[in-house]
């Protein structure tokens, strides 16, 4: 699943743009794809809460289905429908609920194409919203993408800008295989310029350099992009230039984009909100140590949530995830 294309920055997309939030871009992507392809249906609990209200108005109840609280099975209903001619978007809503659906996603969706020798296709999207902060407590605050990275047969995206989520959600819906979309809900209110072109697609498996720099490469995953950009802005006054890479797709990871960056900087930090053990940073660090060791001037650092559950109390939650200051500290250690 190596991505051979070495272009790591999108050319400025020509054509008109519109300002919208990350959340509005998710809805817009689904709206356009449902207009484009009548096989696309939306299924989920309380779908109107997570952006489905507008879609029900547009497409009616035969395209937008409210699900009973049966994650372990409605996920499989989506998979069965995908095998039999539909292209479902299954809204898992809170990402922590995906554990209830693991058998269907792991044992069925990820495996059936392979196990049937390619007799069936499973074009399906699973939307998972990561509500990590705001005193949700541990059972509603998980960021479970690392678990699924260890499962062959799944594609996983977690973009950070409005334009990227629109383009990647559309690619996910058009893709012929199961795709998990992990949205960090702290990104939902962020505004950005989004192309209005209904064929604006961001390819799955391609990273983007969100900020160019010289001294250190910081790979920021999902919601970690916000404190990472704040840290980069803070350090510029000290003459420290930080390159920020957003992989956008977690699987397949765009290792080439990261290698190109550390070829320049020789220093690598990975920042994410997943727990520390076997997270995406572990994988990036391992591959860079295996394949690009000679490019590194300093050890690779990882910042993440600790191997402790997300606490309820604001006092405990405040510094649970990487902050601007912890990222600044890590960058200084490397220089």
């Amino acid at each position, binding site marked *: 699943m190596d991505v051979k294309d070495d272009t790591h920055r999108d050319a400025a997309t020509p054509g008109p743009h519109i300002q919208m939030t990350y959340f509005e871009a998710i809805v817009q992507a689904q709206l356009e794809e449902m207009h484009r392809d009548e096989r696309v249906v939306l299924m989920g609990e309380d779908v109107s809460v997570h952006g489905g209200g507008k879609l029900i108005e547009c497409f009616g109840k035969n395209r937008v289905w409210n699900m009973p609280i049966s994650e372990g099975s409605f996920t499989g209903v989506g*998979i069965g429908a995908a095998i039999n001619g539909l292209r479902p978007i299954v809204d898992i809503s809170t990402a922590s609920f995906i554990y209830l659906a693991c058998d269907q996603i792991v044992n069925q969706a990820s495996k059936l194409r392979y196990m049937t020798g390619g*007799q069936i296709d499973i074009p399906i999207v699973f939307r998972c919203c990561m509500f990590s902060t705001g005193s949700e407590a541990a059972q509603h605050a998980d960021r479970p993408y690392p678990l699924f990275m260890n499962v062959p047969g799944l594609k996983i995206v977690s973009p950070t800008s409005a334009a990227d989520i629109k383009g990647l959600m559309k690619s996910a819906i058009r893709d012929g*295989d199961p795709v998990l979309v992990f949205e960090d809900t702290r990104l939902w209110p962020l505004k950005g310029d989004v192309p209005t072109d209904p064929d604006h697609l961001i390819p799955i498996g391609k990273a983007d350099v969100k900020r160019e720099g010289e001294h250190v490469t910081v790979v920021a995953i999902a919601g970690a992009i916000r404190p990472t950009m704040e840290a980069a802005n803070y350090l510029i006054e000290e003459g420290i230039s930080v390159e920020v890479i957003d992989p956008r797709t977690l699987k397949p990871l765009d290792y080439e984009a990261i290698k190109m960056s550390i070829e320049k900087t020789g220093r690598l930090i990975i920042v994410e909100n997943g727990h520390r053990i076997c997270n995406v940073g572990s994988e990036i660090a391992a591959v860079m140590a295996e394949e690009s060791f000679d490019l590194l001037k300093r050890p690779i650092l990882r910042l993440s949530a600790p191997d402790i559950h997300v606490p309820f109390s604001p006092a405990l939650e405040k510094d649970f995830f990487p902050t601007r200051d912890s990222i600044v500290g890590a960058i200084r250690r490397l220089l």
Partner: protein
Amino acid sequence: MQLKGDRRLEAFRRMLRIRRFEEEGRRLFNGGQIPGWFHTTVGQEGAIVGASLALRDDDAMTGTHRSHGHPIAKGAHLQALMAELMGKEGGVCKGRGGSMHFADSSVGIISESGIVGGGIPLATGCAFSAKVRGVDQVTLCFFGDGAVNQGTFHESLNMASLWRLPVIYLCENNGYAMTTSVATSHGQPDIALRAAGYGIPGEIVDGQDVSAVYQSAAYAVTRARAGQGPTLIVANTYRFDEHNIGLAVSGEPYRQVEEVEAHKRDRDPILLYRTVLLEEGVNEETLTTIEHEVAQAVTQAVQFALASPMPRPETLPDYMFVSTIAH
């Protein structure tokens, strides 16, 4: 809605195709030519064939880890199935599935789930798709008595009832989930009664009587196609072989030898139906001819499978994805 004319002979033929395929497979498995685990359908042919014959060719089906009988009952060719058992390139799943996963899409099977109860949501979704797309396709969902205790059974029946999906839930109740009996694992051993909790019809049928199963399934298929929703059919049947071939169960036997032998003697769906056909005036010669043809087809399947090459190592990643990255 009864099995009539040549359909009766087809029922006999398909049951026999399963039986002979399984017997030959068991021989090859014991001879070391089939890897993995081997779960035969011997004894359960009446339930499987009776239900499958009620379907149209374009109807869909899902099955279980005891998967060999389902595609054969739906009319699949035997060669690619036998090759799959041996892990060959010419296998129906290209050697990626094996004994527990005999999905053959050429006859409308979307999956055979090795995870007990795992296929029930898929069948429900398959029927959901037919409803959304406005086509009159029906899905037949096979599972065993053990799967009835999985949450997927209950969640799926609820959704199928709620949306009146065109799906038939067919429980092959052979009395034992591996070694655990219905009596020791079901709070309500009358599985058909569970349908009432979801507001759908539930009925019990003699799974060793292929024409009774057909009649029951044909009625359910008609209801489903007419938009009247799902049905739960519990076909009481019996597994003649051990859970899987070669399984040694230590300690107190979970079923007595006399019980197994009595079923083989008195409750063999093929012997029972052979007698019925003769009583209905079918010639002995007609049945012998079918028996000969089936034996020949199984022999050819074995020859095909033995001649088929093993998958080449460089094909390991084949069939993982439709596309590695989006178009």
